[in-house]
């Protein structure tokens, strides 16, 4: 059972990672003058869209999300609305955090870029939370503690979310340097850092879990 779950996760992660790859390659073919640096926002939103769609599809198919108690339409709709509300809530939280953390200005001309970075961060972290845990903030808080993971998916969530955030954090480091590279422009290095971190997390999670499968024991809910 362990191995099958890890294998499922590895393949799911491979699909998500390839979606990021496709989101970079496909617009390069379709859109004229596409470049990760110059038309950064196009790339960013294509990655966001791809990751979001693939995440929802994969986790929906795998049935990882907690099962709904009632299968009425009303319940499903309310669940969807709740999820959207949560996503928006965390989007605003993360965007204000991004604004403050990087010392960006609300009213400057890079507001859209700042906001886009937080959209990307929310997609990489919050959306996965929603997919795995459902709209349940208590569970989200629980997951990010040492003994909080209750399944392999929770552990992978910990790892990918942590890696994305750390990647975005590290992405700010080159900004002050005077190298005059195109990727040093705000917020390109941060979005690249977040994406690279996310991809690293996707790779690292199954490997780590496989490595530690002896030590990992999960309580049932």
């Amino acid at each position, binding site marked *: 059972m362990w191995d099958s779950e890890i294998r499922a996760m590895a393949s799911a992660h491979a699909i998500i990672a390839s979606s990021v790859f496709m989101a970079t390659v496909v617009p390069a073919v379709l859109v004229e003058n596409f470049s990760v640096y110059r038309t950064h926002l196009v790339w960013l939103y294509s990655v966001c869209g791809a990751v979001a769609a693939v995440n929802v599809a994969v986790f929906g198919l795998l049935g990882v999300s907690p099962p709904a108690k009632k299968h009425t339409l009303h319940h499903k709709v309310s669940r969807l609305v709740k999820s959207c509300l949560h996503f928006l809530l965390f989007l605003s939280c993360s965007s204000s955090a991004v604004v403050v953390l990087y010392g960006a200005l609300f009213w400057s001309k890079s507001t859209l870029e700042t906001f886009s970075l937080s959209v990307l961060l929310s997609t990489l972290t919050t959306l996965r939370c929603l997919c795995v845990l459902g709209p349940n903030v208590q569970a989200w808080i629980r997951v*990010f503690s040492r003994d909080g993971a209750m399944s392999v998916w929770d552990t992978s969530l910990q790892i990918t979310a942590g890696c994305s955030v750390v990647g975005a954090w590290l992405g700010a480091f080159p900004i*002050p340097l005077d190298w005059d590279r195109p990727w040093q422009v705000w917020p390109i290095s941060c979005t690249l850092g977040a994406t690279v971190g996310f991809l690293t997390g996707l790779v690292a999670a199954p490997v780590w879990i496989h490595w530690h499968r002896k030590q990992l024991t999960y309580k049932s809910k």
Partner: protein
Amino acid sequence: MKRLPVLALLLWVCAVFYVGIFLFVGGFLLVRLEVNRSSTCEDVLLPDSGGDFCWREPRFRRAVVLIVDALKADFAQYDPGNMSPRPYENKLPVIEELVSSHPAHAGLFTFLADPPTTTMQRIKGFMTGSLPTFIDVGNNFASSAVLEDNLVHQLVQAGKHVVFMGDDTWENLFPKKFHRSLPFPSFNVKDLHTVDDGILQNIYPTLKGDDWDVLIAHFLGVDHCGHRYGPDHPAMAEKLTQMNGVIRSVIEHLQNDTLFVVMGDHGMTETGDHGGESQKETEAALFLYSQSPLFPGPRSQLKPEVVPQTDLVPTLALLLGIPIPYSSVGQILTPLFPLDGQTTSGPADLTQSEALWINAKQVNRFLETYSSMAKDISPESLSRLKADFTRLSAQYLSTVQQGRPPSPEVLRSMQGYLTSARETCRASWAKFNPLKMAAGLAVLAAACVLCFVLSELSAAVVSVDGVGLRAPAVVGLVGGASVAGLQAASLGHVDAAWCLAAAAFSSEVVFLWRVPGISSASRASQRLLRFPLLVLFLRCCSLLSDSYVIAEGRVVTYLLFSLCLYVPLRLNWEGFLAATTPPDAQKPPGALQPLALPAWVVRREGGVLLVCVGVLVGSLYLSLALHGCREEQGACQPSPFLSPLARVQDSRRRNLHYVLSVAALGAWTYLLYRWLCHYGNLNHAGAAVFAARWLLPLASMLTGLHWAASSTPEDRFRSLAELIALAQVVLPRGVFSLLGLGMLLLWLDPLTVFLKPRALAHTRGPSRPRPRYRASTGISPQAELHHLIPQLYQRIRHSLEDGVTKEGPEEGSRPAVEAYGLGTVYSAPLLLLYGLLGLGLLLLHPESMAPAFLLLLMEGGALLYLHATSTTLSSQQVTHLNSFTVPWAPVVLWSLAATQFFHATGHLPTFPSIQWSAAFVGFPQGHTGTTIPAMLVVLNTFTSHILFAVACPLLLFWPFVCEVKSGHGWRGGTEESEDVIMEMRLRENPQQFSSALLHLATRYLFVCGVQVFASVCAAAILRRHLMVWQVFAPKLMFEASGFLVSSAFVFVGVALVMRVDVAVSRLFKRLLPESSR
């Protein structure tokens, strides 16, 4: 509690750091006094002429000086045999052509620059003839104008018209001196052409006109090309070829009475950088040319290969017929002057012997003046030089009086004298001392290790008798004395720096050597790789890059923010925030069984935590709007809050700022007052309470009035002008004296405890309310406070009496006295000192900075509460005794916050950004001495360092202050024994108290010291970096002085805690006999 040993240890640690800084700075920064005297035409220099020599017809009436920045010696050479020249080779053929075709008219020399080889220092060097150092004491930091006597000054004095074009550094160095000046921006290193093209557009029309006597043109293209591409790049070839063309066409414009000088100010390394002292950087080219014969003698034998840069000044001065600048230590270029008997164009020309004599006499005069002002030239060499001069002046004068030309020996000895004088000055001004730098680095590194070890082992160290300081002290003294003895025996004099180094280093080594013996028992395995230390490491790394130092304000804010988000994240990761989770059964065996806090406490503390993080983040974010701008940050607007209100034109904005400032000031005072009131520290009628109740509000009121007076524009309220002027003197002085009085009173009587005898019968009632803090009730604060800490003294007495009388606990624990404010007896005076100091420092800033101070207070408070709640929450796992020691995260946060507010109060680590106006607060007419203004400026500059350092011990107290709220009732049903005793817990464990205080102070010093060490390393490693004198050296100075100030005020804070402890002991001693009677 051990007071003196702890203070002695701290003092020793600080002293070791100081010695390290002193050593390094002594080897790195070259210091020289400026002599502010000028030569005049009346100086009698020639023995026979009697009058001044300005009236003599000069050999050249005009001069064109082309300075090609970074024209390396190699660039000017031409090797016809070189078939495949590199981009920088053989690009100036005109020089070689002229030198070979007209050997009497042209000469090429290697021009040897002195380090530091940066443009500004070099310009100063070849204009004053002296050896400029990084800090020319007496220099006006605020502007970089050259105040010493220099060629430009002398030329202007002589009525000559100096026209300048090119690098705008000159305009800053010689403001308002030039007859005409066309400066072009020099800052952008990437721009190769703006300056050069600007010169080329203007130089030929100027040459054709005749409103100039001396034309100076400074080309920057070659230097910028080196910085951008390095010398080995086609762009360099292009640039040098352009220069070749310039030289050629300028020569075409020259007339017979014009001297033409082409020179580089310094060289460049293989990578195109400069600033250091390698041969590639110091060797520049010098080319002299004139249409009339320039070199009277035969060229081949006379040509000096290498000419020190200082030598240009006396040569140019004498050729142009002006006095040699006063502080020049250069020597004339002898080949340019005719020997006696050689005929030149004019009979009145100075001969070689006359010129050398004038030169020697001027250098001797300068040395006499300088040695009377400063002692940094060694007396032996000075007296030797003096003897030399006396001897050769006697020889020279005797030959001249006999009417004979001086013999070649006299000329040689005059040259020898000038050379050795220059070398003597150079040895003391213009060389890094690598040995001293290395020694300083070693001492500092050892000091950092020492500080770290001391903080980790504070408990063990304090428990050792005499804190183990005796052996290091003895060894240090012996080491210092032995080095002094050795020096006295071998050299004949004692160099204090090396004695101190030996003392510091030997004492450090002895202490560290003894550490394994001290620590054998208590060494806990500590993981070093923790996030707070990682942040500290990143901060230190950031000091090694110029971009990060330039963006320091933002970098520190970013790190601070990261660390403050880390705290709640870690708490959540450890599971302390999820109260509902039951204790995990599957913990590894051997772990402590965690004490479970009740869910409501966890929830409330979690809320407080979130609020703290919110306040912290908010104040961090707002504080970003208060930063100033360095000149390196191109598109940066300094904060509008930085300018004094009197300079704000828009009256609505001025009023808004004023109201904002006064509101911030009021909030500052109110918050402090409120806090003291809250914890019952204002009931007593003592001196400290008087300071809090009356002096603090009064001082802030006067400050507000002072701002009103100082922010009125000068042209309005003419009728009140006298009153306003009076107010500007009286009000700030009044505030200063009030605050000084407050601090004095605080030191004399720091207790804020109100004692009230209590009827026994009253307390015996079983329904005595438990001490509980209720913040918002309708009861007046006074009445509320009666309930706050009534039982404190009971607990103390209980513990004290336990050993003496064997009374039953029921009888003994009845309180006989109530003590209000005992729970915050340590933190209240500290906070009050903080408030008083902050108010005084605020007065030294521009009025609009008051919001920054409020933010500082709020951020400090948020950090303290963050620390307190995280301590409470993690107490679920850690036993309570360990919580005396302060973990790394708050200490690193505290120190980063100090740096962050250094920037948020409008300061920058550069000399031009020092707020000199602080020296005139309360002294609008200026000062007579230099001590008071220097002190005021230092206080102003290091405000945030001072405030955070003084308040550092609060980190230890705050978890105890907040203990009330965490409510220890959950611990068990034993009502009596679990009273809230707050800071008295510290007093009950004097040993742990002193060790925790030592622990905290050494940790804070470590965090500051490591940053100093990092900036010292940056200066040492990058001493050849382009930005070393613009970025790293000033940063080092600010970091080092910040450490000095911080450590002094940490010491003040700890000393105040000790003082309170003495007072509390005395209080108990007074009370005990009474109550046990």
